[in-house]
């Protein structure tokens, strides 16, 4: 069985997303470490869409699904926000000293480090679809 939920673009819906992931992780008996990685990847992507994908006050819908594919987890996030390919996003250098480290931009980098592979495309009806494969 797979997890699937549809959320409006409100920051507080992160709590619902976390609950759904935690319950699915329990059902699949995922190791603690992969559950933590999954939650982190999902939070970073969800929050990024909610905070940067829409105009202020613009309603939006974010569909999230999770399934097992052999030794991997496949997380699919689809949204109607403005087009955004996280693979093209700027990633701050992580070896800079304190003063030169930028405050933002870390979230997508963490996703890219944790994912085995990431696929992004726009669907025929102009929605962003991001598919992230994570090791179990």
């Amino acid at each position: 069985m797979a997890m699937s939920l549809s959320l409006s673009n409100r920051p507080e819906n992160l709590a619902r997303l976390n609950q759904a992931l935690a319950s699915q992780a329990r059902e699949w008996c995922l190791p603690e470490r992969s559950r933590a990685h999954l939650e982190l990847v999902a939070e970073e992507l969800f929050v990024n869409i909610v905070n940067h994908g829409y105009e202020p006050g613009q309603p939006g819908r974010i569909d999230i699904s999770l399934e097992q594919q052999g030794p991997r987890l496949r997380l699919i996030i689809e949204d109607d926000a403005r087009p955004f390919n996280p693979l093209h996003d700027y990633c701050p250098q992580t070896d800079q000293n304190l003063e030169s480290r930028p405050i933002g931009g870390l979230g997508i980098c963490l996703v890219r480090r944790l994912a085995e592979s990431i696929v992004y495309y726009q669907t025929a009806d102009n929605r962003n679809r991001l598919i992230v494969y994570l090791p179990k």
Partner: protein
Amino acid sequence: MKIKRNEDQGFVIVTLSGRFDSMTAKTVEEKFQTIQDQPRILVNMSGVHYISSAGLRVLLALAKAMNRHQGLLRLCGLTETVREVFDMAGFTQIFQIYNSQEEALEL
């Protein structure tokens, strides 16, 4: 997120317990802003089992604020999951991290 503040050996000690994510980061940030002019701060993270980039940003902002007035910032009690995120983000190199609070309070 629970935030406890106390003082010991010249340090303001902030003990965090709970998830340090985009829903709780603002509360911690506000707390840090009230103490960031202190000369010595220790953040005890032993009760934090989850951190996302929102939490990392708040810690980085505190470190930058402390650095501006040559304050001393130390962290202690990083759990395994938090340490892994610190490593990925390159934070292990820019923070003074101690295994225990006792060790962190030694000057």
